[in-house]
């Protein structure tokens, strides 16, 4: 529950001059209408400061202090504060929708907190890896608690499922940018538990994910979270990152099964070194395949742009108005149709607006499809490239910096 400073202010009323007011002879005074005051913005900024502090602390705990215990308690704190106390809203994952909406809709005024929530974790990740996921994200924390019997997944399953977050990201950005809906918020699996209320669907998804999370650890984080995609990409180029060994890895293999998320890259053995001609051939193939994939996926997804557009309220309304005559008398007329008819707006204007929206969806779905095609292509490319590695390293993209592996490493720090 939000902490509220409630002050019921009786606003002084200046009535519209021409309104006929009853003349009271008994001295009765018309009472002032009472409305509750909005929670102060200062509290939001305090939250922001706290968030910044938490991010700094967790990063220090992972990179410098290297303590699994501390990271664990940090995540519990985040779960309790950012999750149950603050109800998990506005959350980081959702903030990317605010940013998308703001980028493509100049009339939308984005709150400063949303921008900062979006930028800060990415900033930290660019330099220190995915420390946010470990200890500050309440969604991650609740899943972490449920990771009781983690099993290891085969790489091909991971790569396949790993495409889902990209699709989710694409859809989220598409719907947010066209001002249609915030689907991440709509299908947030865990906010129902924080807030003690949600739609049936959200509870079902939440329950299913927590259940899955007992065996497949952090399923939302790894295979659904759209913000995780961005963090993944940023983390790959991070300057410093959680390293299992504080110095040089001695290949003692104690950490091998420590990671519930299959994020530890094992040494590869001497394997075949890429010879240059093979490399160039592969490069050429990928230079041809990837663009082809981009175009193919873009074209395929754009075929469905009308189905995407249907999620938009105005488009649905226009669709219902167009099919109104064909409906039989027994089918109840939807409320939004009767409302529109009662509002006296011109149908032609609605159709014009709708056509513009559908066009935006068309462009957007081409871009989204192309993006997914690009991801396909690059993933394929990366899979077939052989990179020699002779120590145990945390996969820079996938590692969530939970620090479970750290206690296993016997290497003393420098």
């Amino acid at each position, binding site marked *: 529950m939000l902490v509220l400073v409630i002050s019921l202010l009786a606003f002084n009323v200046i009535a519209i001059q021409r309104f006929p007011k*009853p003349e009271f002879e008994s001295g009765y005074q018309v009472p002032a209408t009472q409305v509750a005051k909005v929670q102060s913005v200062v509290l939001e900024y305090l939250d922001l400061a706290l968030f910044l502090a938490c991010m700094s602390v967790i990063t220090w705990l992972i990179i410098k202090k290297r303590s699994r215990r501390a990271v664990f308690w940090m995540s519990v704190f985040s779960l309790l504060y950012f999750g149950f106390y603050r109800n998990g809203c506005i959350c980081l994952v959702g903030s990317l929708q605010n940013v998308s909406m703001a980028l493509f809709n100049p009339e939308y005024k984005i709150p400063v907190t949303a921008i900062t929530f979006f930028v800060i974790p990415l900033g930290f990740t660019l330099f220190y890896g995915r420390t946010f996921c470990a200890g500050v994200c309440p969604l991650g924390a609740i899943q972490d608690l449920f990771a009781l019997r983690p099993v290891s997944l085969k790489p091909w399953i991971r790569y396949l499922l790993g495409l889902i977050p990209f699709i989710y990201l694409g859809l989220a950005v598409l719907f947010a940018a066209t001002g249609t809906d915030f689907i991440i918020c709509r299908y947030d699996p865990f906010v129902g538990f924080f807030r003690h209320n949600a739609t049936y669907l959200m509870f079902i998804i939440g329950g299913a994910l927590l259940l899955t999370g007992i065996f497949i650890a952090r399923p939302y984080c790894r295979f659904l979270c759209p913000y995780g995609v961005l963090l993944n990409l940023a983390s790959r180029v991070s300057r410093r990152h959680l390293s299992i060994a504080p110095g040089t890895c001695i290949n003692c293999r104690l950490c091998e099964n420590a990671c519930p998320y299959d994020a530890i890259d094992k040494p590869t053995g001497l394997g075949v070194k890429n010879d240059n001609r093979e490399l160039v051939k592969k490069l050429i193939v990928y230079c041809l395949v990837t663009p082809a994939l981009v175009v193919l996926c873009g074209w395929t997804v754009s075929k469905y742009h009308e189905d995407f557009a249907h999620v938009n309220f105005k488009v649905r309304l226009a669709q219902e108005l167009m099919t109104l005559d064909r409906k039989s008398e027994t089918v109840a007329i939807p409320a939004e149709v009767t409302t529109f008819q009662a509002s006296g707006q011109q149908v032609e204007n609605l159709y014009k607006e709708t056509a513009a929206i559908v066009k935006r969806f068309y462009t957007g779905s081409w871009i989204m499809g192309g993006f997914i095609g690009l991801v396909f292509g690059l993933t394929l490319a990366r899979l077939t490239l052989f990179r020699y590695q002779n120590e145990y390293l945390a996969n820079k993209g996938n590692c969530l910096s939970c620090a479970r592996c750290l206690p296993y490493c016997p290497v003393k720090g420098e």
Partner: protein
Amino acid sequence: MDKDKKIKRRDFINTGIRLGIGAGLGAIAIGLTSRSVSGKTIWQIDPSKCVQCDICSKACVLQTSAVKCVHVYDMCGYCDLCSGYLRSNAKDLNTAAENRLCPTGAIVRKYVEEPFFEYTIVEELCNGCAKCVKGCGSFGNGSLQLQIQQKLCVNCNQCAIARSCPAEAISRVDHQSPYLLKGFEG
């Protein structure tokens, strides 16, 4: 030597991409901040668009909806036959319970003087069903209006009622003018 060169090159590329992403983020942040920023936005109903469909009381994520009926006393006619209080098809025009509109009994009527009656809303009982709003607006002055009560609303990033509203009557407003009441200048 080869490996060193490779690592240095990789580092260079990494740094380059990192700086690129960093610059991009910075651009987004500064661009958005300078262009359009509000301290905070909250959700509010526009009473002139509201069609009293009663979805507000069901769609809110809270157990009891944050939408409440607000009485703008300045617009009220203080009528004996209040069409927001009484059913209009009642056979006997008295204030018996079966003739009252409000399903939770949240409107309280008090005699002031002839022929004026004061109507107040008990907020804890109101569930935001808009029956009284419809009555008052159809026959009377429309002094009963639905509003999202800001001390109850949790200010979701995407309001669930706004998503379901058939009239698109709910939108984000700046937190400094949080109420959109007709006939009321706070």
